[in-house]
């Protein structure tokens, strides 16, 4: 550990999700503001290269496409980290107090408390941005569905969806400004490269994230604790994916029927081809694992 110069902080998957959310959110804010008729009024469409900005049909299409990207990334993020049981970014009791101390320490008023992989204020910032995005996605879905012909919502639902969507936009803009403003402070700057390369400076980790550093050291000494997917969960994963695939792809309409039938058969007889196949790939059931 002492020889290591840099430490991996963000995997490729995490960086992919971060930049997907960042780019799609930027496009959504730009195209969303275009749904107010402001680009024409304030003559943004007179700027060379932006003449399209006042065309609602273009900005609306862009808004939908970016929304598809954002929703994909958001759901991916939630499912991915839930399955891996990575919850270190979720806020905890006492985070407000701790953030205050950390920010005070950045200006040299006090000693910084020992931190884990994420600082208390990072957990709070994550919660704020995640909440804003979820609010925007949920209200956005209502706004999308109302555009179908034959679907009418009550005026109250639409009003709530519209105003909360507009509020969410203001919240996310504030969140992004605060997120970027954090890098004005020198103390936070070593974090910047990790969202591009994945790595942070090891000295920085030792100094600022001493608890994380300890965890990493423990892990290297005991060997990577690999928590493979148990056979039971792997089977459920396959069954669920097949059902969804059957629902989404027309040509695979028979898949849910097949999965349902095979689940019944396996429950009654114990015969399950998926299980046999997954065993070949090296999955073990919970019981077998405990024995090992």
């Amino acid at each position, binding site marked *: 550990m002492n020889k290591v110069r840099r430490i991996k902080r963000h995997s490729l998957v995490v960086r992919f999700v971060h930049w997907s959310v960042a780019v799609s959110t930027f496009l959504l804010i730009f195209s969303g503001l275009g749904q107010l008729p402001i680009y024409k009024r304030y003559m943004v469409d007179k700027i060379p290269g932006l003449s399209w900005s006042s065309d609602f049909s273009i900005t609306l299409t862009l808004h939908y496409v970016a929304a598809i990207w954002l929703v994909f990334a958001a759901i991916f993020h939630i499912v991915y980290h839930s399955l891996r049981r990575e919850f270190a970014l979720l806020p905890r009791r006492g985070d407000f107090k701790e953030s205050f101390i950390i920010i005070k320490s950045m200006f040299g008023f006090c000693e910084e408390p020992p931190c884990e992989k994420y600082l208390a204020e990072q957990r709070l910032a994550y919660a704020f941005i995640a909440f804003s995005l979820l609010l925007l996605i949920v209200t956005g879905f209502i706004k999308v569905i109302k555009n179908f012909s034959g679907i009418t919502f009550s*005026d109250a639902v*639409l009003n709530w969806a519209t105003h909360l969507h507009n509020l969410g936009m203001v919240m996310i803009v504030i969140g992004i400004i605060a997120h970027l403003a954090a890098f004005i402070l020198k103390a936070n700057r070593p974090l910047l490269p990790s969202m591009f390369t994945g790595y942070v400076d090891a000295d920085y980790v030792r100094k600022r994230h001493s608890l994380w550093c300890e965890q990493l050291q423990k892990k290297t000494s005991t060997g990577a604790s690999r928590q493979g997917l148990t056979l039971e969960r792997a089977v459920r994963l396959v069954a669920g994916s097949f059902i*969804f695939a059957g629902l989404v792809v027309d040509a695979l309409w028979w898949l849910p029927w097949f999965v349902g039938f095979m689940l019944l058969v396996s429950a009654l007889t114990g015969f399950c081809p998926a299980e046999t196949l997954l065993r070949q790939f090296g999955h073990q059931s919970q019981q077998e694992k405990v024995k090992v």
Partner: protein
Amino acid sequence: MNRREFLKRTAIAGIAGGIALTGLGKLKPALAATAPVGTMIDLTKCDGCAGRKLPACVEVCRETNRDRFPRPRPEDIQPYWPQKKFEDWSKKQDVTNRLTPYNWTFVQKVEVEYQGKKATVFIPRRCMHCDNPPCANLCPFSAQEKTPEGPVLIDPNACFGGAKCREVCPWQIPQRQAGVGLYLKIAPKLAGGGVMYKCDLCYSRISRGSLPACVEACPREAIAFGTKEEMRRKAHVRAAAINGYIYGEKENGGTSTFYVSAVPFEILHRALIAQKQVPGLPVGVENYLENVNGLAEGLLIAPVAGVLAAGLAVYKGMKGDGDNE
């Protein structure tokens, strides 16, 4: 059941569930009992009220809605910064040959030639009250509403006057008056442009069981009012009888207004454009939302794809060397 149908049903079920949970979906019984209404406008009967100073429908519309016309204070009418222009009709309230915030219906007069004969056609124009109105759906502040009865209403207290509704309307129906509305209370010099006005099919009158004023006033019974399906039938019967054409049934994805004419609407549209009259009558004009509604399917699939991709990534990560921290 095909895929499109499934996605639509899933969306409806999800939303219906959400609404049931919030309790906001309780339909007012009075509205639930009301069938959507519509009008049928017979262009073979309308003569633009020959001999009268003003067509009766236009005159009665102005009288009926006078109290709801905008009353701006002159000092509130300012240019839309940074633009130099502003839309003010308060000094031109007498204009009756086009739609304005003070004139919610008017009659076009157009000369056409059809089957070798010259003819003059009079066309009463106003909001068509579309089935899936882009104006109401795309209003950024939900200041417009499609009522269960059919009419599309603008809330003058919520409208900011951006005029987006006019741009997405195939007939540019809503008309703007500066110097009135919500924007005056916020930053009148910097944002907002007034309030949009248009026909509401005399919503308060029809809610009481009366006819829209224009229908009642028409001396030649050229405008009929009833349930939408009744009007559709009536239009088809009339069109078959005169070997004529219908407009408004398919346009913009369907509307509550059915025009019947002996002259094809393509010819009327071309003549209107040639004579520089607005709005035209574009036949089969597509709904502004058609394009994005196609994309909406992608939005319903995105979460499913996210779940599958995440499952796959986790699976690969577990099989790998644990480098995926």
